[in-house]
């Protein structure tokens, strides 16, 4: 299953995810992200640097979390996409929908400005 580490740097919520996000593991990610969104943090950063595979169920999970954050005007951004994961976003044109940063550090710096 996935390894999901949650921290709260500077009032943002940072979820560092590692493993393969597929039909089997995406419910675990969904549960973690919706729980974070329920706390209405001003920003959620999902760092995918440790994610080596992500399919359409993973995308669906991220879209759902993005939409939940939007309900309370929270920011929801991604970081650390490996090439094989970025290509899935590009194929679905979701690279134009999500804010994507090279690293969680970059994301947090941008969100603090």
């Amino acid at each position, binding site marked *: 299953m996935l390894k999901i580490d949650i921290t709260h740097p500077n009032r943002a919520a940072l979820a560092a995810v590692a493993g393969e996000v*597929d039909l089997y593991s995406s419910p675990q990610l969904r549960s973690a992200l919706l729980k974070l969104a329920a706390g209405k943090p001003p920003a959620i950063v999902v760092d995918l640097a440790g994610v080596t595979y992500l399919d*359409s*169920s993973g*995308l*669906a999970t991220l879209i759902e979390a993005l939409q939940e954050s939007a309900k309370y005007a929270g920011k929801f951004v991604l970081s650390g996409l490996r090439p094989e994961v970025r290509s899935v976003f590009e*194929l*679905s044109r979701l690279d134009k929908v999500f804010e994507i940063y090279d690293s969680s550090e970059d994301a947090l710096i941008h969100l603090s400005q």
Partner: protein
Amino acid sequence: MAVDGFTIEIPSEAKYAKVVRGAVSYACELGGFPAETGQAVTLAVDEAVTNIIRHAYRGEPGHAIRVTCRITPRRLEILLQDRGRKADPGTMKPRDLDQVRPGGLGLHFIKSIMDVVDYQSGDTGNQLLLAKNLPGSREPDAQD
């Protein structure tokens, strides 16, 4: 190059999709695909397996999904077979990507990535043939 390949069978449970991904990834390596193409083909097949689990077998565990990988002189063929519910052709259209919503992307990936997507259904069950032309190959002949 001789025709060769293998067949694996998994139960209809999401935790076993990774077994198919590993096998297909290796088949792509044997076929000489660049890593990016192998990753894309693996994604397409994984989406097809997911569709069988969720739709053909309605999420019920314990049913068989057979995956045969065959490398011909011109292409890599992946045949997925199940004995679940027949797919409704009306639901087999990729959705509009301008709609941002969860769900519905699997079919888009399959049709975008693979060179051949051929679904057949009959008395012996459902068959989905996915194929990707090998690097540098011409269009396959009818005999392939």
